[in-house]
C-alpha cells in the first residue's frame, strides 16, 4: 500500500493537477483564472510524459564518454515531444491572452457573470 504512494507519488501529483484544471475552469468566475487552470491541466499532461521517461539511476541524455548503454540515460523522446507541447501551450496562452485583451477593452470586465450581463444588454 505504501508503494502505491511512495513509488508513484508523481502520478498522484499529476492526477491532482489534471483534476485541478477542469475544477478551476468550471468553478472560477474570472476568465484569467480559467486560463490559468487550463494551463495547469496542460502542465499535468506534460509532467505525465516526463515521468514516463524517467529511469532510476539514469542521467541526462547527453552522451557521456564511457557511459554506454541505454539504461544509463533517461529516455529523451518524451522530453522532445514535450518541448513541442510546451510551445503549443505557450501559443495557446498567447492567443487566449489576445482574446482576453479584446474582451477587456470592449466590455471592461473579465468576470464571467458580469461579462454575460454586459453582453446581453
Amino acid at each position: 500500500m505504501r508503494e502505491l504512494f511512495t513509488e508513484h507519488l508523481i502520478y498522484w501529483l499529476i492526477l491532482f493537477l489534471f483534476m485541478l484544471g477542469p475544477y478551476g475552469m468550471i468553478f472560477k468566475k474570472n476568465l484569467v483564472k480559467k486560463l490559468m487552470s487550463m494551463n495547469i491541466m496542460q502542465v499535468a499532461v506534460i509532467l505525465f510524459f516526463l515521468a514516463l521517461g524517467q529511469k532510476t539511476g539514469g542521467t541526462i541524455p547527453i552522451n557521456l564518454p564511457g557511459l554506454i548503454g541505454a539504461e544509463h540515460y533517461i529516455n529523451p523522446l518524451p522530453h522532445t515531444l514535450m518541448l513541442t507541447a510546451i510551445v503549443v501551450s505557450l501559443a495557446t496562452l498567447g492567443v487566449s491572452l489576445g482574446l482576453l485583451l479584446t474582451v477587456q477593452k470592449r466590455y471592461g470586465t473579465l468576470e464571467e457573470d458580469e461579462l454575460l450581463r454586459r453582453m446581453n444588454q
Partner: protein
Amino acid sequence: MKEQLPALIVIVPLLIALLSPLVAYFSTRLLRGLGLTAAAVSFVSAVGALGHALTKGPWHYYFGNWAPPWGIEYVIDPLSGLMAVLVSFLSLVVLIYTDSFLREEGWLKQGIHYALYLLLTAGLLGMTVTGDVFNLYVFLEISSLSAYGLIASGGYKATVSAFRYVLVGTVGASFYLLGVGYLYAITGSLNMADLTVRLQPLLDSQAVLIAMVLILVGMGIKMALFPLHGWLPDAYTYSPPAAIPFIAGVMTKVMAYVLLRYFFFIFGVLNGFVPLVLEVVGWIAALGIILASVMAIAQSDFRRMLAFSSVAQVGYIGLGLSLGNMFGFIGAVFHIINHAIMKCCLFLVAGGVKWKTGEHLIEKYAEMSRRMPLTMGAFLLGAFSMVGIPPTAGFFSKWYLILGAIEKDLWIYVVVIILSSLLNAIYFFRVIEQAYLKKAPVAEREKFVEDKKPELPATMLVPIVVLGACILVVGILNEPLVSNILLMAFPGGGL
C-alpha cells in the same frame, strides 16, 4: 516533384500562410492569387496522391528519409487520401468565396485572415495525412489555434465564444495527448502502423482501455459529439461568414476521421474492449442525434439552427463508427463527405444572404427565393440532402447506415435515424416555407424590386452553385465512390 506530393499537400499552404502578412503589405491582389494558388496546389497534390494510393497501394512518405518507427511518416491510403481531397477542395472553394468579404478590409486584416485560413487548412490536412500520433496532436493544435483566431475575428460576441472554445478545445486536446501518452507508455511507439502491431497482444489491458476512453473523449470534444458539444452553437453562430463554411464543414469531420482511424485501424473493431466502448459511443450518438435535432427546431437564427443540425449530423457519423461493420464504416465515411459538402454549402448560403441583405433570422428570409433564386436553389438541395430525399447524397448515407444497423440487429438505431430525418424535415421545411411561400413586408419589397444587380458576385455565387451541384452529383454517383474508394479504404480491403 511528383515524389513529394504528400509533403506538398501540407507544406504549400503552411509556407504561404507564413508569408501572407508580408505579401499583403505589398499587394493584396498578389496575396489573393498566392492564397488561391496554395489551395489549388494542395488540392491537386491530394488528388494525385489519392490516385496513387488507389492504383498502386498506400503511399508511405518518410520525412527526411527517416524510416518509421523513429521517423515521422505521412501515409496516404484511400481513406486519408479521400479526406485530404475533401479538405483541400472545400478549402479552395471557400477561399474563392471569401474574396468579397475581405475586399474592403485593410491589408493587415487581409494578410492575417489568409494566414490563419491557410494555417487551418495546413493543420487539417496534416491531421489527415500523418501517420504518427504525436504529429497528429501537433497538427490538431495548429488547426485549433487558427480556428480560434478565425472565429474570434467575427466580432465581440465571437471573441467571447472563441475564448470558451479555447478552454474547451484545449481540454479536448489535452485528453487526446494524455491518451497518446498512455499508448506510448505501453508500447513505446508513436507510429500508427507500428502501434497497430504492438497493441495486438495488449488490447485486453486496462491501460489500453483508458487510452481509448481518453482519446475518445478528447476527440469527442473536438468533434462536438453529444454531450461534449456545448462550445459549438455559439462558436458557429458568431463566427465570421468568411470562415465559418470551412470550419463548420470540415473541422468536426476531420476529428471524426481521427476516431475512425483509431477504432477501425489502430485498435481494430473486434478486439478487446473496443466493442464495449463503441456500444457506449452508439448510445450517446443516438441520443445526441435526437436531442440536437429537437433543439434545432427551436432556433430562430438560421446559423444557430445549422449549428445544432451539425451536432446531430456528427451523431450520425458517431453512429456509423459505433456499428463497427463494413456498412457502418461506409456510412460514416460517406456521411463525412456528404455533411462536409452540405454544411459548407448551407453556411455559404447563410453568408450570402447576410452579405446581400444583412439578415440571419429565419423570419426575415421571406421571399428570399425571389431575391436570390440560385442561392436558395442550392439551399433547397442542401435541405433535401439533410432530410434524406433521394437522389441527393444525404439519402445514401442513411441507406448505408440503416443497412449497417439492420445487419447488427440494432433496430433502435434504425428508428433513431428515421425519426431524425423527420425532425430535420420539420426545421428545414420551415425555412423553405419562409423563403418560398411567405410574403415579405411591403417596405422590404420596395427595396428589392428595384434591385437589378445580380444576386451575388460571381466569386460567391459560383462556389454556392458548385457545392449544390456536388450534393446531387455525389448522391447519384455514390456507387463508384463507394465501390472504388471507400471499400478499398476499409481495413482488409473490404469485400
